[in-house]
């Protein structure tokens, strides 16, 4: 993974000192709250319902054990002993005090971490495929690209006061595990006919109030032109994005309102005027960054591990974990393990400091000292020998992190919702807990198969409900929490937005409604290997609509 050089380290240290000084100016009144708010947001410090919230950047989700241990220490020393993994691969702390934040930032800088631009109207954390570097369908590891964009976008003098936030995602594989089609800029690494690597550039995807799928504005952008082309897009957005209405200020609205063709013309016009060589990274720099993402020294192993197979045969719990939480690795004898941070009945994505330390130890011992945070709020250990999986799993069991539900119905994405978030209109975590508890039975989960429920506590859609195959949106209906269910969303390369199933329902009715939706699926699926998403695509929503009606009315009608 990337290691800071003296320049990177200096920027982060300077930023901490600058923030410390900004806090002092806020406290002595030379900065008004209005002036201070964007400055604290640009350092990831939000105000939530009960306290401040600090969002720590985990660039493209990649961490090492030293960093994760430091996060655990920070959570213990300056927070309440836990953190929350987010849908943009970051970590949130829910209880920091303002005056402690500069000290927290110092502690982060010690391990090459920061909170720069994790909020505010600027370019945010660049996210990437959490199986980067290990997936067999990968054309190129997206993380060197993500790191290059991270540096280019950090404290950019021209683009720090945009109309609104700006999110970029990169994928390097045929399967899109980074949801690039619902980002402001999505980059797909592709090869042209000459075999050269470049980028397919999508612009104007996004969720929230007006969800949209991104439009392709360049089919093939040569690798060397990346930063200059991004500058052209940002310049058009900075100049012409709406600033009159916060809910119409994202680039997706600009693309929609002027039309894709007109937008492309504007970008190409700016691009032609741009000083490419002054912006683009030279090949030596690109190579320097890429070298940090070289794979670990894999051993030459047989594809099948006798120890692994024997352990599965011996231990049904282990076999279940192996069936759900392992990802096929491109190197024989290896696997990438998804550690679920969705224990049944617990807040999705929350990890205690003890669990963080346990994960750090496991990464160091079994995964070439590397972990990834996924945008599904789980953790990946990407370089594990099949021979070691059973030992690793035993340690996960001790740490309470062994839940064998990766990708299953209880692997729910939920935003913090109205238990924490000042923007929320309803709670989301209790809904996730109730559904997970209802479907806790492991056999039943295996029977249902892959099914991603995503829950948002408000229209801002931080839970990505629009791209959940079952999406749940929590709203306020006349002072009572009310939940709308959508079906058919997909975040991947066949990106689709979910459709509303019917009127909103009460919190108590949600688990039952999900149960009936699932029962319908089990009845009408063409076979055990037709996944829920495929059934919905095949039959549409109508067969599922009765699931929202109260059981009594169905019985009466019968």
């Amino acid at each position, binding site marked *: 993974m990337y290691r800071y050089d003296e320049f990177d380290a200096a920027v982060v240290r300077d930023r901490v000192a600058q923030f410390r000084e900004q806090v002092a100016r*806020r*406290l002595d*009144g030379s900065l*008004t*709250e209005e002036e201070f708010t964007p400055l604290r947001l640009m350092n990831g410090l939000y*105000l*939530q*319902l*009960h*306290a*401040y919230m600090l969002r720590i950047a985990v660039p493209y989700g990649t961490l090492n054990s030293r960093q994760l241990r430091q996060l655990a220490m920070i959570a213990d020393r300056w927070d*309440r002993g836990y953190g929350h993994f987010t849908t943009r691969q970051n970590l949130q702390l829910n*209880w920091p*005090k*303002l*005056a402690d934040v500069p000290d927290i930032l110092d502690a982060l800088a010690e391990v090459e971490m920061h909170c720069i631009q994790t909020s505010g109207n600027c370019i945010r954390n660049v996210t990437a495929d959490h199986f980067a570097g290990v997936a067999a369908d990968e054309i190129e590891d997206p993380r060197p690209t993500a790191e290059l964009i991270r540096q280019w976008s950090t404290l950019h003098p021209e683009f720090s006061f945009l109309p609104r936030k700006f999110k970029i995602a990169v994928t390097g594989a045929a399967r899109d595990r980074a949801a690039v089609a619902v980002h402001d800029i999505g980059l797909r690494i592709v090869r042209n006919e000459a075999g050269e690597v470049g980028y397919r550039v999508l612009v104007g995807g996004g969720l929230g109030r007006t969800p949209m799928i991104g439009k392709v504005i360049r089919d093939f952008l040569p690798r060397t032109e990346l930063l200059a082309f991004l500058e052209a897009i940002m310049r058009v957005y900075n100049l012409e994005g709406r600033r009159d209405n916060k809910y119409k200020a994202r680039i997706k609205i600009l693309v929609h309102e002027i039309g894709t063709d007109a937008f492309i013309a504007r970008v190409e016009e700016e691009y032609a005027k741009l000083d490419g060589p002054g912006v683009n990274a030279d090949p030596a720099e690109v190579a320097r960054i890429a070298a940090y993402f070289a794979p670990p020294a894999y051993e030459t192993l047989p594809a099948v591990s006798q120890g692994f197979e024997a352990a599965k045969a011996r231990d049904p719990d282990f076999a279940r974990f192996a069936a759900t939480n392992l990802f096929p690795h491109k190197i024989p004898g290896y696997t990438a393990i998804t550690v679920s941070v969705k224990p049944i009945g617990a*807040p999705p994505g929350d990890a205690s400091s003890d669990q963080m330390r346990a994960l750090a130890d496991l990464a160091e011992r079994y995964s070439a000292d590397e972990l990834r945070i996924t945008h599904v709020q789980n953790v990946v250990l990407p370089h594990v020998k099949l021979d070691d999986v059973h030992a690793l799993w035993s340690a996960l069991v001790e740490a309470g992190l062994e839940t064998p539900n990766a990708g299953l119905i209880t692997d729910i994405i939920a935003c913090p919702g*109205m*238990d*924490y978030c*000042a923007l*929320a209109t309803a*709670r989301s*975590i*209790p809904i996730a*807990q109730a559904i997970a508890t209802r479907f806790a039975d492991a056999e039943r989960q295996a029977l249902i198969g892959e099914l991603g429920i995503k829950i948002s506590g408000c229209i801002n859609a931080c839970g990505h409900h629009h791209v959940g195959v079952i999406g749940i949106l929590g709203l306020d209906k006349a*002072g*009572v*929490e009310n939940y709308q269910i959508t079906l058919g969303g997909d975040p991947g390369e066949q990106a689709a937005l979910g459709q509303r199933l019917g009127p909103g329902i009460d919190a108590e009715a949600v688990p039952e409604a999900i149960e009936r939706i699932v029962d319908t699926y089990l009845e009408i699926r063409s076979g055990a290997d037709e996944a829920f998403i495929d059934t919905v695509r095949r039959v549409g929503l109508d067969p599922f609509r009765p699931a929202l009606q109260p059981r009594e009315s169905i019985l009466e009608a019968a």
Partner: protein
Amino acid sequence: MIMSANALLDGAVVYYAPGGSWSPRLADAVVAATEAEAAALEVARAAAEARGEVVEPELSPVGTDEAGRLVPSHYRERIRALGPTIRRDLGPQARGEHAHVSL
């Protein structure tokens, strides 16, 4: 109506109390019962915002329970009075505060 905000230093929920002070206890909150009082409270809100002594002051409706204790009318403010509903060990509820408020 009452006015709540977040304290500048730790972000904790505070209520506008008599004498222009801020208290973590709901029971201390100034209650605006008439239109005139609500208008005055709004003036106080704008002033507090301008002074920057607290963050994001807001007015919200409040009622009382059978024992005459203040209970916020909307669930958002009830959650703010208690803490995260999924972590009863965090927030004012962990200190036994506002025990009469239920979601």
